[in-house]
């Protein structure tokens, strides 16, 4: 594992944000919408939590701010992008969860995966 494993496990909201940005650069509101979509509408990040975590992720260098494109309503917004380091961390967390889920399947808490 090449990511900083000491950061794991990630907070749920942090992981959702990293996942949202793994799908492409987004501005703040875009992250909120994406997280909502990822979680089937169960998680709607509040602006406070979102920007507190964004500030922390920027400080840690897991995401970076990029110049926004001019969007439809002609407003200049700040976009965020996953850095390679952030991607490594998110992957490490996903692998950790994958291992956990594998155990859950073994214990028959979840149905076994169909063999392809």
């Amino acid at each position: 594992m090449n990511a900083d494993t000491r950061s794991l496990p990630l907070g749920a909201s942090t992981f959702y944000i990293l996942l949202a940005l793994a799908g492409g650069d987004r501005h703040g509101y875009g992250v909120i919408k994406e997280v909502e979509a990822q979680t089937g509408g169960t998680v709607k990040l509040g602006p406070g939590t979102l920007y507190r975590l964004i500030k922390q992720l920027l400080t840690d260098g897991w995401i970076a701010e990029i110049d926004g494109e001019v969007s439809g309503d002609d407003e200049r917004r700040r976009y965020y992008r996953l850095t390679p380091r952030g991607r490594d961390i998110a992957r490490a967390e996903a692998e950790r969860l994958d291992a956990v889920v594998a155990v859950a399947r073994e214990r028959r808490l979840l149905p076994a995966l169909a063999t392809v």
Partner: protein
Amino acid sequence: MQPALAVLFGIALALVPANFRREYGAAMRDDFARACAEERAVHGTVGAVIYTLGASGDLLTTAMREYAAMFFRDFSYALRSLRKTPSFTAVVVATLALAIGANAAVFSVLHAVVLAPLPYSDPDRLVALDALDRGKPTNFSLPDYADIARRGGSMFASSAAFEYITHTLTGRGEPRNFQGIATTPRLFDTLGVRPELGRFPSAGETVRGAAKTVVISDALWRSTFGADPSVLGANLRLDGDTYRLIGVAPADFHQPRLGQGFAVAEAWTFLPENGAGTEFDRGYRAFKVVARTQPGTSLATLRPALDALVQTLARRYPGDDTAHSVRIESLTDSLVGNARALFLAMFAAVGAVLLVACANVANLLLSRAASREREFSVRIAVGASRGRIIAQLLVETFVLALAGGALGIGLAYGAIAAFVAFHPSNIPRAELVTVDGTSILYTLGVVAFCTLAAGLTPAFASAQRDVAVALKSAGRGGDAHRGARARNILVASEIAMTLALVVGAGLVVRSFIALTGQPLGFEANLVTTVGGVDLPDSRYGVDAVREAMMTRTIEKVRSIPGVERVAWAFSAPFTRYNIGTTFTIVGHAVRPGFEPSSAMDPVGPEYFRILHATMLGGRAFSDDDRLGTPRVAIVNETFVRTYLQGRTPLGVQIIPSIALAADKTPPLRTIVGVVADLRSSFTKPAAAEIYLPARQLPIGSSTLVVATVPGTDPSAAVAAAVVSLDPLLPKPQVVALPELLSQSVAVQQLSVGALCALAFVALALSIAGIFAVVSYGVTQRTHEFGVRMALGADARQIVRMVLGGAMRLAFIGVAIGLLVAGAGTRLLSDQLFDTQPLDPLTFASVTGLVIVAALVAALIPARRATRVDPIVALRYE
């Protein structure tokens, strides 16, 4: 989008730390607007409101997390920064620890002794009654008490009268003496106390003729009966009588001692509600009264009702000229009122020390901030707000105060442990004082106060510096004037507080000297008292037997080397024993039942010589005044003044009501001498007293008074001699009379000592403060002095310049301090004896002391100013 919702979110946003809001505020507002509009579109207005509440709550959580993160950042920054200046940190922490520790210790005492509720159920409903005789507090007789108890039912739900007595317990190991209480049956009911074991007596059990019962303390139960529950129902031999043990009082029960806290009591014996027809008649005034008021009454409504009742009673007994009245006060005031005044004064003193310490620390912080100008200027230049700098400096002060508080709590623990071990016996509940959770909470409050009091001025002063000027002149300390003014104000107020405190201490010292310097009418040196030599009625009930034993004891003790003289007395000065008697003067008729009363003391022939008392007329007792010779008496000055106004006392015949078993009626006694008052207290005036020859009235519990040869200490031999004559007597308590005198003023001594210590600390802090400010000023003005000296100013002019500035501060501080002291010492006036709160001598000498101290503190740095080398000073030009 409803504007009201945006306003709500905006309010939450305003609580977020400024830097976070600057960075992300617009984005958050924007995202909120979109999300809210979307919720409204999908779920309607209710959805939008719910979303807004959720988002605002989320923002508040965010704000708290951000502040906490900032605090911890500042906290660790402060730790790093303070570690770099260990001597500064140590001085500040030690100063604060001393002041905070003193506050924590005094608060702990105040809390346990004064503020804590009395250890009885519903203590607000408990009151103490005092009988007043011609305006002076005296005691109730049982019939007096019964009148009030019976007719005061609308006022009092329950009440009890009790007196303090001494018991001798025999038949259970070594005979021993202890303090006990004789009370009417409802004492425990009135106080709302349940027995730990067994029961308390019912009213029927205490009538005359019923078997005598006793309740003992938990301590006695453990020490003498090994905490054995089966001891209930056992018979105890107390003073030769048999009592049935019916109950054990709980361990945490404290017997009230009206007027002065709590009494040690090991046993409670019981009296009938009404003493009429017993030896406890109207003439025997020895009882204190405690009562539980009816619910819903207050002292304000009780006072007139009680006065009316007392007047009704007075009409029932016309011709009574003693003008009885009854004073009522809350039991809390009665028990802890004196201690409250004392500890509140002490609390004010430690408060003053805290202010002085904070001023000193503020000063040190200002100097430290001045040397860090560059650091702050750089931080402001790179975008830190002034608010951030202020917050960071306050956190730094908080770290210092917290360390001081932690150390201070440690000091308070030590001080309280010492206090509990050595406290004067007449401070109520002193043994219960601990540094508990409340004390720690209080200390945290003090820490917060110190943070603001010491930290605000330096923090704001540092943050207000002009960046450009500071950066330009950084490293040479240019713009120091604003800081200088703050420093001067701090030092002046420090001097003012110190002066007020030292004046207070000075007044208390003067008062103490006046109190203990009073003539007492006797010479205490070389006199030893042997107390608690109680010859019980069971074996010494026959007067001749007791008299023979008393004579044998005198002969035996007199033969001990080192004993010069010895005499019996019932109550030597400053011992706790005393008895009184009613009396009549032959040729001066008084209605039966309303005779005047006086203290009474049967004493041996040598008693007055041993004490070096002054005979004002007539003669002292001699060996010929014994059973079988004419009955005589000696009275004191106050007796003559009170009862024999305008008569020649010698030859007057009086009839004290106390009599020997053999006497059918109390005998006539002729006054053969008048003695100057022998005082038994520094604080109370002498009472009227009748002395009788001990051999003409050999009664119980007695004291031997011994004059010793200088350089010898026969006390152990005396105690052994007494026991050798009768092995069933408990070991007597031998105490030197000077020791009794100093024990009686131990509380005053403690408060004088503590106040002086606090005044000394404040003075030391102020001297340090003046020294620091003048030193700093001299350092700042090194260049100026160099120039002046280069231009021809001589050393004396430089010294005068520096001292002049310092003295101006000192005089301003002294002037303010005199005003503060003038107002503040009024609070002390109740504590002062024969000393005016505005005593000119104290004010003048303390003013002089403070000014001299300021002068000395300024002189050292002033002399350093003259050693400035003009070449070095000008090199920076």
